[in-house]
């Protein structure tokens, strides 16, 4: 039952995204950016999804340290993996957009730099997990790292903002324009669909993680016998 519900949710999310692609394709080109602006309908939602997933990961890590219940550890790893995937989508869509609009793939602007460091930190989290063999130790280390990484997020963000406000940024796109209401509606739907997709992915990954744990414990039992 739970699985069917999960897949239904995933199908709905995909349906919304597919429908929105047609709507977005029908939008007129924007004055300054032409058609390139349309990537924003996937760029912003993937950042929202990544933020949701990584916040879930932090809360699960703290809950694990408090309760020592491995359910939370599994949630933390599932959410972080999905979060890193969406961070990658966010970075990739941003890079694709930047090339025609800014003329370069990348600028060392505050947001971009913080986003890349965030990606590196959470990629480090996943690598750390892979490197630790013993399950309890892995869960503890990962939770500690997750908390230390989260402390860094605001420090990184503000320090890089100071850095760039002290030195004026190079030619940088800034739009004073506002979003028409029907665009905002599509954006809202896309955000909803992306977050739904993230939830489905986290749940699927969580099931895998729990199955893995069960297999491990059975294997240990077999060895003990």
């Amino acid at each position, binding site marked *: 039952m739970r699985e069917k519900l999960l897949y239904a949710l995933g199908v709905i999310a995909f349906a919304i995204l597919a429908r929105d692609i047609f709507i977005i394709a029908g939008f007129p080109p924007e004055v300054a950016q032409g058609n390139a602006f349309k990537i924003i309908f996937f760029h912003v939602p993937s950042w929202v999804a990544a933020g949701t997933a990584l916040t879930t990961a932090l809360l699960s890590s703290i809950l694990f340290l408090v309760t020592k219940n491995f359910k939370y550890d599994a949630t933390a790893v599932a959410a972080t993996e999905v979060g890193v995937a969406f961070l990658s989508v966010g970075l990739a869509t941003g890079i694709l957009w930047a090339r025609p609009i800014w003329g370069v793939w990348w600028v060392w602007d505050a947001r971009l730099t913080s986003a890349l460091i965030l990606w590196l930190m959470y990629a480090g989290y996943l690598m750390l997990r892979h490197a630790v063999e013993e399950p309890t130790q892995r869960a*503890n280390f990962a939770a500690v790292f997750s908390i230390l990484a989260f402390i860094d997020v605001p420090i990184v963000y503000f320090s890089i903002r100071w850095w760039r406000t002290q030195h004026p940024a190079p030619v940088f796109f800034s739009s004073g324009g506002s979003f028409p209401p029907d665009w905002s509606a599509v954006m809202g739907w896309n955000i909803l669909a992306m977050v739904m997709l993230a939830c489905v992915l986290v749940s699927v990954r969580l099931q895998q993680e729990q199955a893995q744990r069960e297999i491990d414990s059975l294997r240990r039992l077999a060895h003990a016998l």
Partner: protein
Amino acid sequence: MEFLRQVLVILAKDVRAELRTKEAVNAALAFAVMILVLFSFVFDPDEATTKMFAGGLLWIVFAFAGTLVLNRSFAREIPNDCLDALVAAPIPGSALFLGKALANYLLVAAVELVALPVFGILYYVRWYERFWQVMLVLALGTWGVTVIGTMFSALTVNIRLREVMLPMITYPMLTPALMGAMQLTVDLMNGKSIAGDATVWLKLLVGFDILYTAASIILVDIVLVG
């Protein structure tokens, strides 16, 4: 008082062990000079460009060389199961952590203090003009590097690919501290003292140090004991 004594015992033990073999310190120093040589190929080290790059270059050297020292910090305790004995010793994990962090601090600072004049000679940077301010930035930045490095040294000591993992997880987290230290050092090497807008970086360094020292002391027991 008792806590302080325990910290000092660990500190003395680590410094003594390192001074007898000098393995990490020597490697770190040679490595630091090597990076300085390699960087001379990256840009033309004339006066103008050197002034621009000096601060950044210096902290890259310190961060990379520091990792060599930090990597050894807990790895040294692996043979003969010394780490288990240390964890089983009747001292709190935080005392063990602080003792090791302070020992690493002294060793990394020693490497830096030797590397700094070498850097000054090779790149003709007058780093001594604002001596005490440079020392202040060095002291604060190095503590940031060592406190995170020691924590992650404890975290990675028992895992696969230890030597690879430590820098992989340390540097992204160190970014704010390194950035602050670089900004301040560039200013100081250009003859500007820390004033006005630049004090925000000093505050950042102090805040970073305090925050991560506190977080590490709270979380270190989970890492060491479980």
